[in-house]
Every structure is written in C-alpha cells, then in structure tokens.
C-alpha cells in the first residue's frame, strides 16, 4: 500500500503558525510605551527561522516544497514584490543543503546560529531592495537596525521552541523528518 507522505505539509503548517504569531506580535508592537519612553514602535522579521528546520532536518524534496511554499506565503502577506522571498528562501535552502553534512545539524545551538545568519542575510537583502524608496535612507537604517536587533533577539529566544514544536509534530505522526520512515513512539 502506498502511504501518503506529508512531511512538507507539517513544516509548512508550522511555518504558517509562526507567520501568524509574528503578524500578531507586530500588530501589538506597532505602538506601545516602554518604561520612560512614551512612543515606541518596532517590527519583527523572522524569515530566518522559517527556513531553518526544512534546511537542516528534512530531505531535499520535502525541504524544497515547504521552503518555496513558505516563501510564497510570506510574500503574500507583505508588501514585497511577489516571489522575492521565494528566491531568497530558496537560496538559503540551497546553500544549507550543499553544506549541512559538514556540520552538527541535529544540535540546537547550530540551528540557532543558522537561523540568526539566515535572518541577517534575508533582512539585509530586503532592506537593500527597499531602501531606495525611502526619502531619508540614513534615518531609515537606524530604524532598521532596531528592528533587526529585536528580530535577532526573538530568534534566539524562539528557535528552541520552534524546532521542538516541529520535532513533536513528527513524533506525533511517528515519522522521521529526513527519511520519512515510520518510527516507534
């Protein structure tokens, strides 16, 4: 009997959950007061975290499927030209697939480093792409620096939970993320 293999869907579903949580956080961070500061606005970008699990743990076919779909989902909810995240996420996925055998990819610390570097790359790429529209690029970079700082701190805090969440979903479905073989609970 042919068994359907939905590993890409598991990771894509988890990524949609993260996109929703990130959108919700940005909604509330659009305007808040903090200690002695009357007005504060910050925005989180967690693109690096969306590509990490698929690039480190999934096999090539399912990894590509979930990464590309996640790229399209991220583009649809933002104001980027449609397809930008698809290409950027794809590039990170390709680099990781090429190099991941040389690193301890099961380690959480390594996943955090990958998520941080991927997020830094994505954030800078999008910033360079859109900064031309801004009438005052110098002050825009200051704002972007604070957004990046907040995003990187959030990634450090969230990566452990997000990787564990995806592992738990695979354990629930009794499937190995890379081979797709049935595993004992």
């Amino acid at each position, binding site marked *: 009997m042919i068994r359907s293999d939905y590993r890409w869907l598991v990771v894509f579903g988890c990524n*949609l959950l993260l*996109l*929703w949580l990130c*959108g*919700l956080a*940005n*909604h509330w961070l*659009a*305007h808040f007061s903090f200690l002695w*500061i009357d*007005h*504060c*606005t*910050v*925005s989180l*970008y967690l693109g690096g975290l969306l590509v990490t699990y698929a690039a480190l743990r999934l096999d*090539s076919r399912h990894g*590509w499927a979930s990464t*590309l779909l996640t790229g*399209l*989902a991220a*583009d*649809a*909810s*933002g*104001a*980027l030209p*449609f*397809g930008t995240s*698809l*290409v950027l996420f*794809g*590039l990170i*996925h*390709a*680099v990781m*697939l*090429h190099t991941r055998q040389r690193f301890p990819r099961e380690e959480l610390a390594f996943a955090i480093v990958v998520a941080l570097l991927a997020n830094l790359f994505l954030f800078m790429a*999008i*910033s360079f792409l*859109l900064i031309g*529209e*801004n*009438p*005052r690029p110098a*002050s*825009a970079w*200051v*704002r*972007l620096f*604070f*957004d990046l700082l907040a995003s990187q701190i959030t990634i450090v805090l969230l990566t452990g939970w997000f990787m564990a969440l995806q592992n738990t979903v695979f354990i629930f479905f009794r499937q190995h993320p890379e081979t797709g073989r049935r595993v004992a609970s």
Partner: protein
Amino acid sequence: MLPKRFDQARPFTTLGVVVLAWLLLPVAVKTFTRSAFFEIQAPVTLADSYVDDLQNFWASELKSKQELIQAGKSLAGLISKYSFANQQNQDLHAENLRLENLLNLPSLPAYRLEPARVARRDFSGWWQRMVIRKGRNYGIKVGSPVVYADGIVGRVAEVHAYSSEVDLITSPSFRIAATAEGDNRPVSYHGGDNETFSPPRGIVDFVPLDVSASQSQPLRLVTSGLGGVFPPGLTIGSINQLEPSTDGMFKTGEVKLDLRLNSLTEVTVLVLLNPDQF
C-alpha cells in the same frame, strides 16, 4: 548514477530551475497565486480581530451602571452636536449644488463612506500597512482613499475577497500632492521617516520660498484634490519646520503626523460613486 560533482551542485541547479520557472510564469498565474496564498491566511488574521472585539465586548460587560450612564450622557451630547453639524452640512451641500448649476461647473467627485475595522497593523521600517475587514464584498476598490476623524490614513493598495490592505501615509512608498492651508500652490508630500522612539513624520518638498512654518507657528498640510483620488482639504499633518532645499529654489521640511495613526481601530474608506466620470 549522477557524477559526484553534479550531485554536489544539485541544490543550486534546483534553485536555478525554480527561479527560471518563476520568471517564465505568466503574470496572471502569479497574481492568482498571491491572492490564493493571502486568502489562505486571511481567515486567521480576521478571526483574531473578531476575538479581540469579543474580548472588548466582555470587558465592557464588566463596567458599572454608573459608568454606562456617564458614557450615555457624553454620547447624547455628541449626537446633538453631530446632528447640528449634519444639518449644516446638508445646507452647504445644497448651496454648493445650486452654485455649480448656476455657474455650469462640473460637480465634485461623490463618495460612498464605508467604515471598516482594522484587523492587523504591520508597521516595519520597510513599509507601513494595515489590513481592514472589508474587501470586494463591500465594493472596495484599489486606490480608494482611507480616512479617519482627523484626516487621511492612506490609500487601499490591495483588495481581497473579505479584506483589504491599506498603504499608510507613513509608508515610504506613499506620495501625494498637497497644499499648505490657505495657499493653493501644490507641494509634494511623502511618508517614510519612521523612527523607533519618536512619532512618525512625513516629508514635504517643493514648498514655495515665501511659505514659512516653525514649531511655534505650525502650518496645516491638507490634500490638494489634484489627481482626483483624495478630496481636497483633508488634513495630512502639520509642517513644523521648513528649510531651503539643496537647489535653493524651494523649501523642504518635516510633517508631524497624528500619533493616533499607529493605534487606529476604525477607519473609513471613500469609495468613488462614479469612477468613470473622473
């Protein structure tokens, strides 16, 4: 079996194929895909906005009778004030129509007012957008002006089945022709000066040299009506500072925007009644 060298380059080959396929994909397919991916996520975005409303409703249920009576009194005062303003508005409208007919002038654009709740705010350093809970189901059109009680909010950038995305006046991509109050010469306004620890500001360019503004004497910036999208006279913000531009032919300055733009929960979309006429 594939040679080892090719096997190592396989991820990049796959990426190349994906990028090529994406570039060759017809625009109609891309538009449909974007819309489909947005609609997949839209129900959740709208649902958490409804949950928020429900939460506010239950919070209001806890208010005491005294507080409700007090709120009712304030509301009654506001209703009588607005009823009078509405009556004045109708008189002015009739007078305007009479003068238009007398002078044989073309009539000004007429709008239908469509109030909508804000479902999601996305104020990053790259763009400043919000999602509202009305879309094609209420006849919202791309480019429609979005306003609130004290001026303009932005314009509709994308319309979906049950929601729309609004590009705010604070967004770097937002540009509009404006005028300083009491002066009919057009100037250029654009958003984009959004710092983390200070309120959002806009930038005004091509201001004539004889116009001046300062912190103590700010100048109200309003829509010019040029371009036919925004009706004239709507508040954008106030010019607090003007200085000569680099070429010395005009002035340039900062526009202070209303802080409430960052925390709006309800906006109004102006839907043009006869779009073919303008």
